[in-house]
């Protein structure tokens, strides 16, 4: 077990390094010259000479490998450089923004889990009956509605029409509800299908016949016998969905005026603010890798058959 974790951690570090290389390459190969933008932002007329001066100042002339090494060396020490646009330290902005995005993703993951389980069980309790059909219809609707549209509907419905929740800002718990639900809709739809199909498959297994022969009722069999069998699959699916929530955050944070990492990333992209974009990408990638590690460990804990291979 310890061996497994340390091995996975080592793999994760290698993965993170390679990911940083990829995101650096992507960012520097993006079109556009940031020096021009900075020069314009400083109010001076962007004469070629001045642009040249700015480029020199922020180190655009150094060889790529040097720039990467320099950036990585600083990033390891928690220094993500200075934002070209604001002139502020990126690492000074990050903690607050990570807290915002963390709140968004953790809350959405919880909402998605609850909704997914509830809808999935609804279908499994009454297979091919009305509740199942309603659950399947909702899943289809949830999976095929774009997130920005869901967010707009949420604001229109619960903020404008019924005025139950604030439409923007990161304040108290009541301001968290709409963003959480908005992000959770798509994952919940996917997860409900995972639960529904998994339960149906489990209920057709021979051990369910044994459970029936014991005199257990359907509800007891669903919870005691079928549910433990789908937990590893569910965790896997949840992990994928939570990983994808970073992408959703880029859409939803600006929508609700939350100043999280997603919003930061979007601003960075708009302004070709390399330092900000790189820092955000690295955080997203690290998050993805950590989520995967947690998923693997959680599957290890919930599936005794997998656990055996590593003990």
């Amino acid at each position, binding site marked *: 077990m310890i061996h497994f974790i340390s091995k996975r951690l080592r793999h994760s570090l290698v993965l993170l390094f390679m990911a940083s290389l990829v995101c650096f390459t992507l960012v520097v190969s993006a079109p556009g010259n940031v020096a021009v933008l900075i020069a314009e932002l400083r109010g001076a007329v962007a004469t070629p000479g001045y642009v040249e001066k700015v480029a020199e100042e922020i180190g655009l002339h150094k060889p790529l490998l040097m720039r990467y090494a320099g950036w990585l060396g600083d990033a390891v020490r928690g220094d993500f450089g200075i934002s070209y646009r604001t002139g502020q330290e990126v690492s000074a902005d990050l903690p607050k923004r990570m807290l915002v995005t963390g709140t968004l993703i953790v809350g959405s993951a919880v909402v998605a889990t609850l909704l997914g389980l509830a809808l999935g069980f609804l279908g499994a309790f009454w*297979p091919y009956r009305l509740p199942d059909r309603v659950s399947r219809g909702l899943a289809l609707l949830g999976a095929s509605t774009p997130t920005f549209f869901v967010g707009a509907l949420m604001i229109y419905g619960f903020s404008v029409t019924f005025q139950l929740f604030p439409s923007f800002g990161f304040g108290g718990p009541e301001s968290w509800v709409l963003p959480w639900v908005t992000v959770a809709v798509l994952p919940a739809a996917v997860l409900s299908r995972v639960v529904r199909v998994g339960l149906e498959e489990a*209920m*057709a*297994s*021979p*051990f369910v*016949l*044994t*459970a*029936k*022969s*014991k*005199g*257990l*009722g359907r509800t007891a069999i669903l919870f*005691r*016998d079928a549910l*433990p*069998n789908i*937990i590893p699959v569910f965790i896997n699916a949840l992990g994928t969905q939570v990983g994808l929530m970073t992408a959703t955050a880029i859409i939803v944070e600006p929508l609700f005026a939350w100043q999280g990492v997603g919003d930061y990333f979007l601003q960075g992209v708009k302004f070709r603010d390399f330092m900000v974009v790189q820092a955000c990408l690295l955080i997203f990638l690290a998050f993805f890798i950590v989520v995967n590690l947690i998923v693997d460990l959680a599957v290890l804990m*919930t*599936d*005794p*058959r997998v656990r*055996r291979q590593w003990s």
Partner: protein
Amino acid sequence: MHDEPLLNVSNLTVDLLTAKAAVRPVDGVSYTVRQGECLAIVGESGSGKTVMNFAPLGLMPTGVTTNLSGSVRFDGRELIGLPESEIRKVRGKSIGFIFQDPMSALNPVRRVGRQIAEMAELHLKMTPRAAEERALELIKLVGISDPAARLRQFPHELSGGLRQRIVIAIALAGEPKLLIADEPTTALDVTVQAQILRLLKDLQRRLNMAMVLITHDMGVVAGAADNIVVMYAARAAERGPVDKVLVTPRHPYTRGLINAIPRREDPIGSEFRGLPGIPPTLGAPFKGCAFAPRCELAIPACTASRPPLARSADSAVVVACAVVNQRKAAA
């Protein structure tokens, strides 16, 4: 209480309706099992022997509509027509089940101790702690060494023989009066088969239970059963005490089955003696005797009408064969 046998099945017919097809895997079968007795039900695959025992107890896959007719009286109570909620109380509590494949009959992600203990909680109204104690007793009863450690293991950590012992422990946990064992040794290694069979037989005697043993292994029948029902194509071909049916089989099908068992005096390399022809598929209706196309004794009358089960020369044995019964009448 009274003289009625523990299990009295009479003229049981089972019809299965799926979305696509309707079949009758059990057609007018009767038998009885008394307390402390073991009945073997023998037949080839698809002869209806499993459905006959599982369908009246509601153990059919979902998506299949099961129509039952005839009568299944268990412990003085008619099971056919009972609602599922009532039949559920019989399952596990009064009737224990043992399945063919212990590899898949246990839940892979739950500790075997829990899988046994939940029976005691459900049927003996025990607290979880008392139920664990009971599980420990049961696991000792089925002859598993190092019982306390086994309780905490998962099915995949146990061998096939051990898993089948766990399945038996589960079946016994509700203190049943009847055990229904569906080919309990078929999926096991040959070396383990004898152990499991001996264990079952021993438990049945010690706990004075009745047992229905579904099998296609004549060796199992000879060693364990008191009575035998030979099934062929959804019907009973022959029924009687094991010592009589196996020694002097009357029905040509029974004779063929027993003749097919390899013998010690067979020369090495000789071909197996099989029954000629293939068994009929379920669902095709028979006007006469279903075995007639494969039968060496068949006469035209065999295909004309279904032969009734009739007492043979020995009144303990009943046979459904027109030819055999005609001879008896002539004698």
